[in-house]
C-alpha cells in the first residue's frame, strides 16, 4: 500500500464498489462539477433519429444550448447532417402561472406543418415538469391531428441524472418498434448510440465495428439512435440479435428489448485490444451461427495487425499502466483500456475514478467485474476539491508524485497531463489516431504507445502546461 497523504483510497475496483454501495463513500460530485442533466441526454438520444422534431416544452435556454452544440456543431459541421429543427414552445411567466398545454398542442400542429417530420418528440423540461403539464396526454391528442407519431418524454433536468435521460429516451424509442412481420436472418441492431442524427460521437469506432460485421456477413438494421430512421426503428424487432457499441449505453435498451420482445442481447465489453475484439465479434456471430466465418475474419485481421500486437506485448510487458479516468474520455473506455493493458502484460492502476462515476455506471461496472476487470484503484484528494482548476491542478500534482512510486510506469490518459513517464495520448479529440476499437484500433493504439515511448525524452510544452496549471511555483 502506497504511503502518501494525498491518497484517500487505494484498493481494487471491487472494494471501491462496495464502499459506494454501503455508503462509506459518498457518490456525489462537488458543487463545482456538474454533468449534463436528464434533459440534455434525452435530447442527445432523440436527435439521433432522422427527421425528428424534438419539441421542447419550456423556455429557450435548454433547447438552444443543445441545438447549438449538438445540431449545428456536431451534426452539421462534423457529420454532414443537414440542419434539423429544435423547436420550443418558449414558455414565459404567464405560462408558468396559467399553464401551457394549449400552446403545446398548437405547437405540435405547427411543428408538423413547418417541418414535415417523421416523428415529433415532446421533451418536457424543468418548467413544464414542475407546473404539471400533461405532456403524454397532449402527445396522444396531437397524434390524431398530424400525420406522424407524436411521443412525449418527461425529461425535466431535475428529474434524474444524465444517465436517466439516455435510458428513458431509449425506452421511449421502443414505442416505435412494431411487431415483426418477419425475422431477418443475420441482422442485428447496434444499441446505445446517441448524439446527433448520424453515427455516434466516435464515428470511426462505429465504422470499424460495422466493417467487421460486414466482413462476417452480418447486416445492421439500425444504429439506435445514431442516425437511424423511424422506418428502421419500426422494423427493429425483426432482427435476430441486439449488440452494443458500448455496453454501458446499450445495456438498458438491450435488456428491455430482451425482456419485452425476446430479442437476445450480446453482452460484451468494448472492443479494445485483441481479446475484447474477439469477444465482441464472437458474441454476435455465435448466436447468429456465423462463428466459423467470424473466426476466419478474426484470424485474417489478427495476422494483419500481428506486428502491432507484437509491439504492444513487447512495449507493455512488465510495465505499470497508470490510467487516469478523470481526464480520460469516458470511464468505461478507461476500464476497457485497463483490461487491454493487462492483456499485453502491463499491470493497470486506475487513478481517480470518482465514486459518482461508480454510482452512475453501476450496472456496467458490475458487468466489467464479472468479466474479470478488477484493476487497482487510487483516489486522491484533488479529485474532490472544489473548483475545476483547483481540482485539476491538485490531481496533476498528485499524479506526478504517484507515478514516481511505480517502477517502469507508462501513463494512459490524455496529453493534458505531465507525469514523469511516457504519456500515451488517448484523447478521442485527435482523429489522426481513430478508431480505437477493433483491429484498426489496435494499430492506432500501438502507434500511440510507440510515439509515447520513442519520444519520451522530448521536452513537453511549458506553454500548454502553464495554460492548464498556471506557472510553476517550485
Amino acid at each position, binding site marked *: 500500500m502506497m504511503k502518501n497523504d494525498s491518497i484517500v483510497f487505494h484498493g481494487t475496483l471491487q472494494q471501491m464498489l462496495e464502499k459506494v454501495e454501503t455508503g462509506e463513500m459518498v457518490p456525489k*460530485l*462537488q*458543487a*463545482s462539477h*456538474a*454533468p*449534463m*442533466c436528464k434533459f*440534455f441526454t434525452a435530447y442527445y438520444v432523440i436527435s439521433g433519429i432522422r427527421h425528428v422534431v424534438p*419539441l421542447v416544452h*419550456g*423556455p*429557450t*435556454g*435548454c*433547447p*438552444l*444550448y443543445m*441545438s*447549438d452544440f449538438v445540431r*449545428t*456543431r456536431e451534426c*452539421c*459541421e462534423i457529420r454532414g447532417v*443537414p*440542419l434539423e*429543427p429544435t*423547436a*420550443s*414552445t*418558449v414558455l*414565459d*411567466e404567464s*405560462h*408558468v402561472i396559467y399553464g401551457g398545454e394549449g*400552446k403545446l398542442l*398548437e*405547437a405540435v400542429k*405547427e411543428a*408538423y*406543418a*413547418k*417541418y414535415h417530420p417523421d416523428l415529433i418528440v415532446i421533451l418536457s*423540461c*424543468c*418548467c413544464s415538469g*414542475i*407546473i404539471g403539464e400533461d405532456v403524454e396526454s397532449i402527445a396522444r391528442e396531437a397524434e390524431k391531428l398530424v*400525420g406522424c407519431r407524436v411521443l412525449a418524454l418527461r425529461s425535466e*433536468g*431535475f*428529474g*434524474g*441524472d*444524465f444517465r436517466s435521460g439516455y435510458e428513458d429516451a431509449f425506452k421511449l424509442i421502443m414505442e416505435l418498434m412494431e411487431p415483426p412481420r418477419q425475422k431477418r436472418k443475420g441482422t442485428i441492431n447496434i444499441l446505445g448510440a446517441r448524439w446527433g442524427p448520424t453515427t455516434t460521437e466516435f464515428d470511426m469506432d462505429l465504422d470499424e465495428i460495422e466493417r467487421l460485421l460486414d466482413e462476417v456477413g452480418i447486416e445492421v438494421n439500425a444504429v439506435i439512435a445514431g442516425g437511424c430512421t423511424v422506418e428502421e426503428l419500426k422494423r427493429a424487432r425483426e432482427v435476430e440479435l441486439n449488440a452494443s457499441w458500448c455496453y454501458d449505453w446499450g445495456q438498458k435498451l438491450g435488456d428491455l428489448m430482451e425482456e419485452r420482445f425476446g430479442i437476445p442481447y450480446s453482452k460484451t465489453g468494448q472492443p479494445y485490444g485483441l481479446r475484447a475484439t474477439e469477444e465482441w465479434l464472437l458474441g454476435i456471430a455465435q448466436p447468429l451461427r456465423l462463428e466459423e466465418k467470424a473466426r476466419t475474419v478474426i484470424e485474417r485481421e489478427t495476422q494483419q495487425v500481428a506486428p502491432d500486437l507484437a509491439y504492444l506485448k513487447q512495449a507493455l510487458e512488465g510495465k505499470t499502466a497508470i490510467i487516469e479516468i478523470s481526464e480520460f474520455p469516458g470511464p468505461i473506455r478507461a476500464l476497457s483500456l485497463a483490461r487491454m493493458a493487462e492483456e499485453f502484460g502491463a499491470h493497470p492502476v486506475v487513478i481517480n475514478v470518482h465514486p459518482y462515476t461508480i454510482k452512475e455506471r453501476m450496472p456496467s461496472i458490475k458487468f466489467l467485474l464479472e468479466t474479470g476487470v478488477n484493476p487497482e484503484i487510487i483516489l486522491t484528494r484533488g479529485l474532490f476539491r*472544489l*473548483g*475545476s*482548476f483547483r481540482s485539476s491542478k491538485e490531481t496533476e500534482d498528485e499524479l506526478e508524485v504517484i507515478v514516481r512510486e511505480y517502477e517502469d510506469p507508462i501513463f494512459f490518459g490524455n496529453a493534458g497531463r505531465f507525469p514523469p513517464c511516457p504519456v500515451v495520448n488517448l484523447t478521442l479529440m485527435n482523429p489522426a489516431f481513430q478508431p480505437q476499437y477493433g483491429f484498426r484500433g489496435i494499430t492506432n493504439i500501438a502507434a500511440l504507445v510507440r510515439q509515447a515511448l520513442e519520444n519520451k525524452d522530448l521536452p513537453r510544452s511549458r506553454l500548454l502546461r502553464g495554460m492548464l496549471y*498556471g506557472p510553476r511555483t517550485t
Partner: protein
Amino acid sequence: MDPEQPEVPADLVTGLSEKCRDPYLRCAFHGAAQTALGVSGSALLAHSPQGCEYLVNNAFSSQECDYMETITLCTKLCVDEIVHGGEDLLVRTIRQAKELPISALFVLSACGPEIVGDDIVAVCEDLQPEVRFTLIPIECAGFRGSQYDGIDIALDTILRKLVKNDAEKISNSVCLIAPHANANPTWIADLAWVKQVLSQMGIEVVATLTHRTRLSEIANATSAETTLLLSHDAGRRAAEYLQNTYHLESVGDGIPLPIGLTNTQRWLTALGERFDAQSAAEKMIADGEKMVMATCRRKWPMARFFYRTPAAIVADATIGIPLVRFVTEEMEMTPALVALYSSQPSARVLLEGELRDLGLAPKVVYGTDVYETRKSLGEVKPRVIFGSTIERHASEGMGVPYIVEVVRMMRQFRFINREYFGYTGILNLFECVQNEWTLRWRSKEKRYEAKW
C-alpha cells in the same frame, strides 16, 4: 413537398406564430450569468439543476473568464429539492464556498427553484453575516425572457445592490453599458476599441457593465457624468435607471454603433461634441479613414466585386443594424433582407430610420427564428448572407454563393479578438468577406493528376 401533407398556414410564413419557435436567443438565466461573470474577483453559484450549469459555462467563455481565477458552482437541484424546497441546499453550498478568495458571490436562480418558491434573496440576507464576500442574489429564471432580458435583470440587480448613492461626479467621464450584448464572437475587441477612443478624447471610463469589472468600479458607477450604451439589444433599462436616479446623461442615443465609415464618423462626432473633444474626434476620423483607404489600396479587397449584389443580414440588432449601412455604402451591396434576433422598440426605430435614410426597402424580420430566417432567405434569394454558421446550413440547397460568418461562427477560430467597431473593424469585416470569396473560388477537385 408531399401532396398529402398540410399546407403551411400563412401566419407561419409571415412570422406571426409564436407557438413553435427554433430560437436564436438563449434564456434570461444565460444573460444574467454572462453579466455576473463580467465582474472580476467574484464567483457564480447557479441555484439550479445541473444542466443550467452548461449555460453558465457558455457565458464563462463569452466573458473570457480564466478558470484559474473564476469558480462557478451549482446546487444541482434534484427531485427532492423541487418537492421540499432547495433553500437548505443553497445554504450548504454557500457555506462550502466560504473560504473562496472572492469579493462577491452571485447567486442566480433558474426556473425550477423560482417556480417552487425558493427565496434566494432571503437566504443571501441570512447568510451575509457569515461570509466575507458580498452575496448578490439575481432572480433570473429562464422563463423571465430572452438572454437580453437576463442581462437587463442582472444589471438592474447589480446597480440597485452595489452602487453608492453619494459618489462624487467626475467630469468628462462615462459608464459603459452592456458591451457583452453583442453577437461579435470577439466583442471584447469592440469594447477595447471604445475604451481606446475614449481615452484619446480624454474621457474617463468609470465603470464597464460588465467585463472584468471590479466591485469598486460598480460602486462608483454613479460618479460618471454619462452612460454610453454599447448594444442595441440590451442595457437600455440600466441606462435609464442611471439617468433617472443618478442623472447620468445618456450619449450616443439614436446612432447606430460604429461599424463602417459613416457610422463610425457619426458616433465619434457625437462623442466629440458631447465631451468638447471635436478636434480629437475629427483627427481620429481623418486618420482612421486614411488608414482604411491606404490599407485597401495596398491589399485590394475583393469586396469591390460585390457591387449591388443582393445581401441578407441575419444577426442581433447590435451588429445587424450598423451592418445595413456598411453593406450598402462600403460594400456597395443591396440589403434585401434584414432579420434581427431581437425586437426592442428602440432598435426598430433605429433600423427604420436607417432604411429611410438610405432609401432601402428590404424585407425586415424582427425577433426572427431559424425557420423564419430560412423561409425569408428562400423568398428573398440573396446572393450573400452576413450571418452565422446556422444560416450556412439553413440556406443549403438555396444556391446562396457566399455566407459570410460574422456572428456565432463555427468555421473560424479567433485567438486574437477582432473588433467590428471603428476603422480596423472595417478591415476585419472586409477580411471575413475576402476569405469567403477565396473559398468560393477554390477548386473542389483537380481536372487531372500531376506526373510527379
